[in-house]
Every structure is written in C-alpha cells, then in structure tokens.
C-alpha cells in the first residue's frame, strides 16, 4: 500500500541549516545557530546512526517539555506578558535536541506519541500513532522564531521567501510545467509583499480606532490617584487627534499654556500613583457659579470647554489657578496634589478660570516626594553623580538638569527594543537617550529627588493650537503631556524637560482629513452648546443661529403647503364631478324638498312610493304616485321621450305645489317622526 503521497517528506538538503542561520542572524544567536546548523546537516555526509527506540524518543521529548516549562516560568517572571516573544525567539533551542536525535536515528522519524502524551496511552499499534518527520516543521519553527528578531528591514521577508520557495520546489507535482510553477510562486510572493504592507496599515488603523474609542470613554476620565504611562510600550506611541478641550483666551498666547489635571508622587514600573487622597469641598462664592481656590485673584483668565462623560470628573486647569467662574457646576473639590474635581451636567460644559502663573498652591512636599524605588535608585544616583548635581544649589540643579536633557536627549515616540521590566528608564538614561514626554518627566522627577529636591509628576495638556475655524484654541488628545514639578525656594515650579519639538512632531503626523473632522467636530460642538445655552453670552452669541431658522421655517411651510396643495388638487381630481345622467333635473325633487321642509321626513331606506302612502297631506296619494311614475320613467326609461316627460312631470308637480295642500307635518312643529 503506497501512502507516501500523504506523508510529509523530509526537509530538502541544507534547508534546516539555512533556517537555523536565518534565525540566528535575526535574533542575535548567530554563533549558536552556526554549530547547530552544522550538526543538523552533518548526517548527510556522515554515516553515523544510532538505533533509538520509541521509549528513548519519549524520554527526550519529555526532557524538552520540562525544559520548556521551566524556561517559560523564568521568562514570564522576568519579562511579564512580553515574555511570550522571548520564548518564541528561543524555541529552536528547545526542540533542537529532539530533532538532532531524529536526524541521527536509524529510522529517521519518530512516533507522534513522542510529542503527545495522550497518544502514548492508546493501544499499541493504534493507527493514530503514526510516524512523523520533524525536520520540516522544525524548519518552519526556525523561520517563525526568526520573526521575533523584529529587524525592520526586508531581510527577513526576502530570505524567508527564498527558503520557502526551495521547500515548495520539493512539493512541486511533476505534471506541471516549470513556468506555471514559477509564475504562481512569483504571484504569491507579490501578493504576500503587498499583504504584509496592508497588514501593518490595518493594524495602525485598528489601533487608531481603538485608541479613539478608548480615549472617548476612558481617557476623558482622569484618575487622580493613578496614571499608567506608556513607558515600556513597544512601537510608536500615537494618540488620537480628537479635540478634547476648547480654550478661549482674551488674546493670543505667547507661549503654550499647560493645563494640569492631576499630580502624582509614587512611581513604580511605569505607573504613577498617589496614596488614596482626600478631596476637600470648596465652598462656592456668594456669586453663583464662582469658586475661589486661592486668595488674590489671578491676573490671567481663560475659558475652557470640556466634555463631561460623567457628572463628576477631574477638570484641567492652568497652573496657579485662583478662581473658577461662570460655571454651572454643582460642586467643586480639590485634593492636596492640586487635582480639582467638578460635579456638573454631562456633555459640553464651560468654565472661566483666573490664574497666576508660577503661584502653584499645591500642598508642601512630603516624604514620598523624595522617594525613589529600589529598582531605580542606583541609576539616578549615578546620573546625579555624573551630572555633578550634588555640588549645586537647587536652582543650579534644575538648570543643569534642563540643560542636560535638552542637549543630550532626543524626543521620540517610538520604542523598538524590548527590555526586562524596570529597565526601560535605565536604557532611556544611559543607552538610547530617546523617549517621549513621560520618559522625560519621570526621569526628571526621579533625578531631582536623587539630588535632594522634592519633585512630583504632573499630567495634563498643552494648549498651543489656534483654530481659525473656531476662533479659539483647541486641545487634542495627542496634546496630552507630562512634566515635572519641583519644590525650589519654598514653592512649586514647573520643570518641563521634554524637547519643545514634540508638539510639531505630533502635528506632523496629523491625518490629511483632519480639517474635515475638525469641521464636523465644531458643528457638533456648536449644536451642543446651543442646546445647553447656559450662559447669557452663549444665548446672544447663538442668536444668529436663530436667523438661520427663518429660511428653514419658510422652506418648511412652503413644502407643507405645497404638499397640501398637491394633495388637495389630487383629491379634487380624484373625486370627479358626478356624471350627469337623465332625471337629475326631475321636478319631483322640488316636491320632495317641499315635503321635507314642511316636516314630512322620509325614513331611512324608505322608498318614495311607501313614503307617499304614509304622507299625511291633503294631496291625494294617487296624484303623488302619478308624479312618481312620471319621475321614474323620466329617470330610467331609455326609450321615453324625456322632453315630454319632463314637461308633464313639471306640470304635475307645479299643480301639486300650487294647491297648497301640503301642510306642515305634525301640526305647527312638524313632527317628522310621527307615524300613522
């Protein structure tokens, strides 16, 4: 029985070695991969073979399994969830023993039960436990593991394509011409190349959409006790372009305005947090809608429009805020770290803020504002030593820190390399010296602490973009920013060491359709504000919108009237005039009207003849019946001389009416219901 057609063939010559070398090159294990490749290919020119029994294969497989398990535990403990990719990159090591023993075995293959425990328990000779050659699966594993090297050039794609083509050649059915095969392979490679570009683009698009969704429902709610940074996230950090705030200023800003939402004191493994803080209620002023946060009202003022997803949220405020005015808030609270929570209605709200830059009235520093976690302490002390911070005054320290970050570090949104947990800051400080604002702010805070200056980590937004469409400043999600705050000379100061190019770097990546999206966003915002209209100024500024309604209303009226008109015309047309038919001008109708006007009512469904019989009039019934007969003939007889009949009927009715014998029914009041 020939079943070779349904079995996987051994790997073609040298393909195993090539796969291993590709893996070694991509992942940095080249000097391990080289001897492994030589060993796996050596059976081709050596005659060394050993009889390996099924039990021995089982034992080797079990050893590989145990090694894999132990390695997985170690890697996940060290690297967390990202360890899965570390494991992927070292998989060729794990299976190398099993594959190499197979290569040197007499049989050249092993039972499937060597890999699956459940098959070992079946009856011996079960047809489910068939032979398997691991060489080609191992080759494919090497290619997959090579992808974990994540070198962003075409080398991996090209080489893996070449190796797959060699493997495909061994599968090629001989019935087809080489040209057909080559053409299809080329087509596949072409489709694959386009496909992998498309997959990257698709990933970016999905990520963007998810982040927008995330940002809409979660990031708009700032947690004053915890902030998870993107320190350690691989790839390019990309925030949404959605407009989250609108800032109205009295004039143009001379420098970007920082709007703070929260401040934190404790840092560990990418997360800034506070010990649970208490929010204290701020009593409102006598003037409704006004709250005083600090004495001496600030000299600067801006109005901020924010979308409230929930009725209570932390609100962004300029540093040194003294008053909140013209707000429809129900309640305002504040914690010791300067975070302000407002309770208001949901939707777009607006409030005016007075502030004095530089007069930050957060609580004085405490023990945690000098604390550095043990994972980072050595690094920051070392850096403080290198930058000679210990010999300087606080002002000099701050200046030195700013200068060094500006000169030696660069802004970047991309993190390519994967490091163990807690090592990203180390690499930022000493290896690649590139990162985004969270790196700079975190490093600044910890470095200042190492130099003995209390410092905190602040998050919020930067206001820098003026919208000509709206006539105000707009703040987008991508304008989210982090900075440090340092306690120097008895007060808190903003220390922003992020290179100023970050804003332009973000804006440079704005999508091409951003103006369209902004226009739609503005329309929605205007409509929402018009609905709210909770400020007199709003009403007046919105009043021009009312005039837009006038032509709309006129249009509506015209449409409705036009509808009615058409409808009526149609109805009129739909009801054609009653068709003229003989007998409609019969004189008997005059008699009937006369009888009715005198109170002689005909019962519903009663025939004229029966009615005439019932009438209590002095006109003889025969006379009335004669007129009735003439009437019927006049109306219904097709062969009658209608002119003659009409003449005679008219005469007869005139005679009846002229006699005056038709008296009102029932006496004076004409009881129309009276019966005989």
């Amino acid at each position: 029985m020939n079943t070779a057609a349904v079995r996987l063939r051994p790997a073609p010559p040298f393909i195993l070695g090539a796969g291993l070398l590709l893996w070694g090159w991509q992942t940095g294990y080249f000097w391990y991969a080289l001897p492994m490749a030589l060993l796996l290919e050596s059976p081709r020119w050596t005659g060394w073979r050993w009889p390996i029994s099924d039990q021995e294969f089982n034992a080797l497989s079990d050893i590989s399994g145990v090694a894999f398990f132990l390695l997985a535990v170690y890697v996940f403990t060290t690297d967390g969830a990202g360890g899965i990719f570390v494991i992927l990159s070292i998989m060729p090591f794990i299976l190398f023993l099993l594959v190499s023993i197979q290569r040197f075995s007499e049989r050249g293959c092993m039972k499937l039960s060597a890999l699956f425990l459940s098959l070992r328990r079946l009856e011996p000779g079960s047809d489910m436990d068939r032979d398997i050659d691991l060489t080609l699966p191992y080759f494919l594993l090497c290619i997959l593991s090579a992808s974990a090297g994540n070198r962003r050039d075409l080398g991996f794609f090209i080489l893996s394509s070449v190796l797959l083509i060699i493997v495909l050649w061994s599968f090629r059915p001989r019935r087809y011409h080489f040209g057909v095969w080559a053409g299809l392979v080329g087509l596949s490679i072409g489709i694959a190349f386009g496909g992998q570009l498309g997959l990257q683009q698709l990933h970016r698009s999905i990520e963007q959409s998810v982040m927008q969704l995330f940002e809409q429902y979660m990031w708009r709610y700032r947690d004053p006790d915890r902030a998870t940074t993107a320190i350690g996230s691989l790839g390019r950090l990309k925030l949404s372009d959605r407009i989250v705030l609108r800032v109205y200023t009295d004039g143009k800003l001379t420098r970007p305005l920082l709007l703070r939402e929260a401040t934190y004191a404790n840092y560990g493994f990418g997360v800034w947090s506070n010990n649970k803080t208490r929010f204290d209620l701020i009593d409102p002023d006598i003037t409704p809608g006004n709250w005083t946060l600090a004495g001496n009202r600030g000299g600067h003022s801006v109005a901020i429009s924010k979308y409230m997803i929930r009725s209570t949220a932390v609100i962004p405020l300029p540093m040194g805020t003294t008053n909140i005015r013209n707000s429809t808030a129900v309640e305002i609270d504040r914690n010791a770290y300067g975070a302000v929570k407002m309770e208001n209605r949901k939707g777009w709200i607006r409030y005016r803020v007075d502030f004095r830059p530089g007069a930050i009235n957060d609580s004085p520093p405490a023990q945690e504002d000098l604390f550095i976690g043990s994972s980072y302490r050595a690094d920051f002390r070392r850096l403080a030593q290198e930058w000679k911070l210990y010999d300087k005054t606080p002002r000099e320290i701050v200046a030195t820190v700013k200068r060094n970050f500006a000169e030696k570090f660069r802004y970047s949104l991309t993190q390519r390399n994967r490091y163990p947990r807690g090592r990203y800051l180390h690499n930022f400080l000493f290896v690649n010296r590139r990162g985004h604002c969270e790196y700079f702010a975190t490093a600044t805070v910890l470095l200042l602490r190492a130099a003995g200056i209390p410092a905190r980590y602040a998050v919020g937004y930067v206001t820098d973009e003026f919208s000509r469409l709206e006539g105000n400043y707009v703040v987008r999600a991508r304008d989210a920013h982090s900075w440090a705050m340092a306690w120097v000379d008895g007060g808190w100061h903003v220390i922003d060491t992020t290179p100023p190019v970050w804003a332009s770097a973000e804006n440079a990546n704005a999508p091409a359709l951003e103006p369209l999206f902004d226009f739609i966003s503005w329309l929605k915002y205007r409509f929402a504000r018009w609905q709210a209209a909770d400020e007199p100024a709003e009403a007046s500024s919105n009043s021009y919108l009312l005039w837009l309604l006038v032509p709309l209303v006129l249009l509506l009226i015209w449409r409705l009237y036009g509808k009615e008109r058409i409808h009526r015309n149609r109805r009129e047309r739909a009801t054609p005039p009653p068709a003229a038919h003989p007998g409609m001008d019969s004189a008997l109708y005059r008699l009937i009207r006369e009888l009715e006007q005198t109170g002689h009512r005909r019962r519903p469904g009663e025939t004229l003849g029966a009615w005439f019989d019932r009438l209590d009039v002095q006109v003889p019934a025969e006379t009335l019946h004669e007129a009735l007969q003439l009437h019927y003939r006049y109306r219904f007889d097709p062969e009658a001389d209608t002119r003659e009949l009409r003449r005679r009927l008219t005469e007869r009715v005139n005679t009846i009416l002229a006699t005056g014998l038709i008296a009102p029914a029932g006496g004076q009041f004409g009881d129309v219901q009276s019966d005989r």
Partner: protein
Amino acid sequence: MLRRLLYRNFRLIHRLSQWLRDRLTPGGGLIFGGLVAAGIFGIDTRQTLAFQLFALTASLLLVAMLGSIMFRSRFRLQRRLPACATAGTPLRYRVRVENSGPRPQKDLLLIDELESAFPDYAEFRNSRDPQDARRNWVDRLIGYPRLVTLLRHRRGGSIPVRAVPAIPPFDRTDLDVEFTPLRRGYLRFAALRLARPDPLGLFRGMRRFATRESLLVLPRTYRIPRLQLAGGRQYLQGGMTLVSHIGDSQEFLSLRDYQPGDPLRAIHWRSYAKRGKPIVKEFQDEYFVRQGLVLDTFLDDGPNEVFEEAVSVAASFQLAIEQQDSLTDLIFVEDVARRLTSGRGLDSTAHMLEMLACVQPCRDRPFSELADLLLQHRRDLSTLILVLLRWDAPRRELVRRLEDAGVPVGVFVINTADTAAAPEPGSPAQRPRQFVTLTAGRIQQDLDAVDWQDLQQ
C-alpha cells in the same frame, strides 16, 4: 450543558478537520500550520515580523486554492467489491480508474468514501469507547476522541488514500485497495474521489464520482472446534417435505388406503388405477436433531461492546455446529421475535451469518418475549446454546425451566473486562450443563479454555 455545547461545535470541527485533511497536501498542511502560528504571533505587527510570514503563507495557500480549481479531465471509475467481508479481517477490493481524456494523468490520489451520518447528541453521550480508559481525564471529559472513534465505527472503517500510478491517455489502471472493516453490517460506499494537487503542491483539486454500493460485513468469528452437540432426536412434524426444497426426498414406507385429509400429492395413481379407489403413499416420520442457538439481544444500558462480542460468539457457534444431519434454529428478538432454521437444505449458514451481521440490540421489549418463545418450542429442541449479555434472575429462571424440561443448555455469558466479578452459575442443582463466562476483549482465550465435552456428551 457543557457537553451539549461541545457537541454542537464538534460537528463543525469535524467537518473542518475532514475538509483540511482531504484538501491539503502534506506540504499544504505544513504551510497551513505556519499560517496559524504566524497569525497568532503576528497580531501585533510591532512586536514581531510574524505578520510577514503570515502574509507569505496566506498568499501561497490562496494561490494554491485558486490553482486547484481547474480539474476537468475525464475519468471513469469502477469499484469491484467482493460478495461480503468479515469484521476485523482485512478486505481487499479493486478499483479501476480509466483515463478517458487525451492527456496523460499523474500525481493522482484515489479516495474512497464511506458514508456515515453524524451521530445525534444522545448517541454521542451514550457511546462508550474502550480506549477512553487509556486517555487522560481532559480527553474523556471533552469527548472529542470518543466522537472520532464513534464516527469511524459508524462509517465502518478507514480506507487509506491510494496514489494512482500514471495513466496514459485513453488507458486505465487497476488499484488494489485494502482496509479492515471495523464492524459488521452494511458498509455504504458513497463515492470515489480523485484528487490532484495544484501546481504549488499545497492544495488538492477534487473530482467526485458518485458510485454508491453496499457491502455486507459479517460478524467476526472466533475459533470454536466443530461441535456435535448432545441431545436426543426430536420428531419433526411435516417430515421431509418441510426440510427439503427440491423434489420429494421422503423415505417411502408403504401404500395404504386414502383417508380424508391426506394430501392429493400423496396419491399413488398407478395403484388407484389398478384398485379403482384412492391409494396413498405412506412416508416414514422424520426425527431430527434440532439445535437451538439463542442470541440475547436485550442490551438495555449495557455497552455495545458486549453485544458485538455476543453476536460474534453466536456467529462462531453457527459455523461450528455440525449441520450434516441436524437443524439449527437461530433465535433472537429484534423488532419481532425471530426463529431462523438452517440445515438440511432449509437455509444456509451463510444466510444465518447475514442475519447476524444485521441484528441490532432490542431495547424496547421485555426479556420474557424470548423466554416465552424458547419455552414454547422447547420440545422441538435437542440442545440449546444460549449466548447471554448478563446472568440475572430472568435468565437464570429461563435456563432452569429449560433444563427442567430436559433440554441440555450451554450458557455463555459475555462480560466486560471491568466487571468486578464473574457471574456465579448457581448451586449445583441450578447450574446449567455448561456455564462459561467470556470476557470482551479476551473471547478467544476464554473459548480456548472451554472444555467442550460437556456440550457434546
């Protein structure tokens, strides 16, 4: 509830795995495995380059699938099955593949398809797989391996795929196909399929040829020595007329005067002509050894394995009993009570085996129907062999009554291997002439250990 939920998914999984197995070549299976693995690791295109491998493997498979569509060559296929087969014994048959087109054909695979309907949930839940005892608890809980075994059993076997040698234009080739039927009964061959790989060698194009045929698979049998069972000869009413299909093979005894009620066929016309009054031929009354072979079909909730072994044992006895001068009644209850007589030209052993091939367990009738049937015909029987599925009170009572009626009874009870203890035959006064316990899975060993003298004395 979990099991029902799993069952619903199993149909889809099974169809999908079947389709993959049929359509993907070994190389295609490798590429497909790479596709799945690359898809898992390539979800985040920033973390690895596995998405590039995913794109490569996906495009290869896509092009291969498209390339397999054009499979228009002309073929004629014909299957030649034997008259019947035996469960557990390899069956070999021939398939003729004729290339009716002007081009030579190579790299073809022949797939013979056996029909089987997907079991319903009740059957799946109640199915038992002897291999389950060897599986881990996860496999037992999920039940998919058991389902696969059940499907194979319903199908009746797995016919391996055969590579077809190259066929020149307008020529043909014959292929021998061999497989082992897993069960008795009818195997339904649904169709023959020819598969041809695409130019990349990853995906198979298929042509299906509906060639429906049936093959009866007789029950597997065990070695039992030829038996001449003990028991007296019983009078068989009706004489040889009853037992003979061809002509008149009665033993002529003498002539006598006609008596009312004699059949007209018995009139001896020459004597009638001579005598002037009807004279009839008188025949010798026949006495036969009539053996009974009873198959207990009242399975209730017992495992199918026991029933199958019982059928096999009954079939083995059917073959083993000497029928040269005796009759054998095969008695069992299915939808109705059946009593089939073979021997002396009445019916053949082969037909009995065919009946046994198709017998099904009886789950909706009481055991008393069988008991009543046996007791009703006990006087006709010289000896009786009972193949029972259990040894409980009704069966003990039946055997006691039969023995009391003077019918020697041999009882063979089929047990499963996991039955705690073998059934006790009873006190010496109650014990049947022969009482044997046979364990499923070790039937042959148990039969080899039987002392057959008790039955043949």
